[in-house]
């Protein structure tokens, strides 16, 4: 018969595995954020930038300096959204 400690360890191990599975599932979701109508940045719920797409006809109306600033803003906004999505998926909202 298993001791209480063994049962506790088993529960802790299964809990860790379940959390890891949820984490992996959450990382599959991607959040997009537009870049001033000239593109789209995509961030996964782990906070990784996974893609940047441009509409090449529209993006040429922006100068490089402004486009760089818009990209930083869009990526930060996508990261904020992605963190909120991750919290919901992992059940960590209050």
């Amino acid at each position, binding site marked *: 018969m298993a001791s209480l400690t063994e049962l506790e360890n088993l529960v802790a191990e299964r809990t860790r595995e379940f959390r890891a599975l949820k984490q992996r599932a959450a990382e599959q979701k991607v959040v997009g954020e537009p870049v001033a109508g000239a593109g789209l940045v995509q961030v996964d719920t782990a906070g990784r930038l996974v893609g940047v797409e441009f509409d090449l006809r529209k993006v040429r109306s922006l100068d*490089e300096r402004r486009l760089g600033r818009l990209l930083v803003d869009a990526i930060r906004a996508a990261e904020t959204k992605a963190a909120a999505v991750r919290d919901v998926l992992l059940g960590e909202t209050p």
Partner: protein
Amino acid sequence: MHVLDEIDAAVRHHSARRRQLALAQAELAERRFTDEVPDVVRVTVNGAGELLDIELAPGCLDADRRPHLLGDRITAAVAAARRKAAGAAREALSELIGERGAAWITGGDAEPEPPPRGRRSAPEDQGTDEYFEDKDSSGFLEEQPWRP
């Protein structure tokens, strides 16, 4: 030593470690890490991996500079800068809380190479894609020689 003294010492030790960790994290946040694709993009992040700046080179959107690759180049530069930051953070924090704790805080190897995306992810399309990239870079698609 009385048990209450032991608890008090443990609490003080824990508080000191927390202060050291907070200090190390604050120092990391002040550090800057960059990665760049020469003549295209330069990305700067801080030691916490927060994106601070994306500097695009003048003319990087010109037709002869392969602007259709710009998004992938930016993505790769951001990932590389963050990998550098995570490596430095892991090194700095592991002295305080051990390698496992530092890997946990910095997300381990949570910034892998970005996966291949879009059309280039289909192996059967690669030949066609490269063909048109070469044509595009040499100006073929802009010239439209059949027009008067």
